[in-house]
């Protein structure tokens, strides 16, 4: 399909592109300066409507008596623009993350008040100004990392929630506490750095929560659901543990049901993928081997996912592979073109590995999607002579 000239053209374009090796800092700050703070766009149509209403009322001024108009306008605007303190409509509990607040507003946190209620534990953060921009993120452990020191802080409980408050400073009475409620066991500050405050909440078990904002005074309320005794683990992304460097084939690492990563960051020249092989091994696993032309195995991540849908890196086009679960294998500082000449879509039809397709070879990232018949645990092995990454996927 593509002839020599087209290959030359492709190589040339990649070479030209590589001459721009980094994003200039000055350009980065130009962009940052140019991004004007944006009002939340949800309010804009409402404001426009209110404006139109005022206009109509003013036009009507000549016809009607003044008193009537003012009340009309007032009630009209009242209907359109939500009042400053919306009554907290009880939202459903969510098990993932919540965020909100006002970006660019700074406030001091004046108090943290935990209390137990029927069906939920409530933690209220009081502010002396507007509620700053915040994130509330659930996690599967009660261990937090201190923002500045990187030291880990273990709170009481088996799960946790991290609260990040941007442009916020701690006030005098925003003390750590150990309320030992049904869900909320401990609250501790885990960061106060660069105007960003973070708090960890240790929870007895993974608990779903909801957040809402109240004013006068400004309060951020987090309710933890205690009506359900046990909840599915939160969906916080599991951290990808780094596999031990280059274990010899003799010291096989155990299969784990986690994401894998490893490899060695390559310098300027990418590691060239030469072959991808897939086969079943009698010892109870399907093995996928990615072979490279020399050098160490480039930096890689193997990420599990609950579907076989992948998005092609450059085009954004979606592909669905065979199977019911997936793995995404990504190599950084790697290239498949022009060394990899075999099929970029393989269907070995093994018991677990059903299909593997290259989903990207762009900007130094080579990625492959793997369709699996079921979710399986795996291990990765970095092998040399020739350079290979083997991914072993357990079969039933």
């Amino acid at each position, binding site marked *: 399909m593509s*002839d020599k000239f087209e290959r030359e053209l492709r190589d040339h*374009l990649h070479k*030209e592109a590589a001459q721009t090796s980094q994003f200039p800092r000055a350009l980065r700050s130009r962009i940052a300066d140019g991004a004007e703070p944006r*009002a939340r766009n949800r309010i804009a149509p409402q404001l426009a409507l209110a404006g139109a209403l005022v206009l109509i009322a003013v036009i009507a001024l000549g016809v009607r008596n003044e008193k009537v108009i003012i009340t009309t306008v007032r009630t009209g605007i009242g209907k359109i623009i939500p009042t400053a303190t919306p009554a907290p409509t009880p939202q459903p509990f969510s098990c993932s993350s919540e965020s909100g607040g006002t970006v660019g507003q700074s406030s001091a946190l004046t108090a943290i008040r935990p209390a137990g209620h029927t069906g939920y534990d409530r933690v209220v953060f009081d502010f002396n100004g507007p509620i700053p921009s915040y994130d509330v993120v659930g996690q599967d452990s009660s261990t937090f990392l201190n923002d500045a020191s990187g030291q880990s802080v273990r709170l009481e409980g088996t799960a946790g929630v991290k609260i990040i408050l941007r442009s916020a400073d701690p006030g005098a009475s925003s003390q750590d506490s150990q309320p030992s409620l049904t869900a909320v066991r401990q609250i501790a500050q885990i960061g106060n750095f660069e105007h960003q405050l973070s708090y960890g909440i240790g929870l007895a078990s993974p608990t779903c929560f909801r957040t809402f904002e109240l004013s006068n005074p400004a309060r951020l309320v987090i309710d933890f659901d205690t009506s359900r005794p046990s909840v599915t683990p939160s969906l916080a992304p599991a951290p990808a543990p780094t596999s031990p460097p280059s274990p010899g084939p003799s010291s096989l690492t155990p299969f784990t049901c986690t994401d894998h990563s490893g490899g060695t960051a390559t310098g300027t020249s990418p590691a060239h993928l030469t072959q991808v092989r897939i086969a079943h091994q009698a010892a109870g696993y399907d093995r996928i081997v990615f072979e490279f032309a020399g050098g160490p195995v480039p930096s890689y991540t193997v990420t599990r996912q609950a579907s076989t849908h992948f998005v092609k890196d450059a085009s954004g086009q979606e592909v669905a592979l065979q199977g019911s679960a997936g793995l995404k294998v990504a190599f950084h500082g790697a290239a498949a073109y022009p060394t990899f000449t075999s099929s970029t879509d393989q269907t070995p039809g093994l018991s677990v590995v059903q299909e593997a397709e290259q989903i990207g070879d762009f900007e130094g990232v080579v990625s492959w999607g793997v369709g699996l018949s079921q979710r399986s645990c795996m291990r990765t092995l970095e092998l040399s002579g020739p350079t290979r990454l083997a991914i072993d996927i357990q079969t039933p």
Partner: protein
Amino acid sequence: MGEGWAGGVEEHSPLQGRRNVYTMGMLMDPVLGRTIERWRDGDRDAFQEVVDRYGLQVLRTARLILRDPALAEDATQETFLKAWRQIASLRDEEPGPWLNRIATNEAISTYRRRHRFQALAERFGRFAGSKREVSSEARMDLARALDQLKPEQRAAVVLHYYQDLSVEDAARALCIPVDTMKSRLKTALRRLRELTGTEEEIG
């Protein structure tokens, strides 16, 4: 066995009824999904994270099309500022292709804006000296030959040969019909061959 899998996303979507970023978590890196959510809420730090992630890619594409570092930086800046203002137009898709679409079109219009005067001048033949000489005899290298293409043609070449987009995807990125894209690529390639003195391979 299922323990530890980041699964259950579909069965237990925490944000049902809200924007659909999380439900497509299996498509988009969840961390990126949350960054986009924060950006939608006006968080400039989140926006900056996206700039850091895609900046180089956008800048490279702009440079390949514009052939001028300063103009490419202008186009990159305009791309991200447009994206910042128009985040609502990012539907349930990865931000990469969306930014790419804005960047490519921005590069073409930056080129047109900047070269309007030059084009006019050339028509009157007065300032034509500033234009690079095209000698039919000398074989040009590919870089010089690319300089000679029209920006639309270069964009087509960059999307197809550098970004490896299919003809259909490249057409979508440039908002043009597939047939137009095909003929644009063909013309561009023919011109490049002429300029570099490369014969077309038969068969």
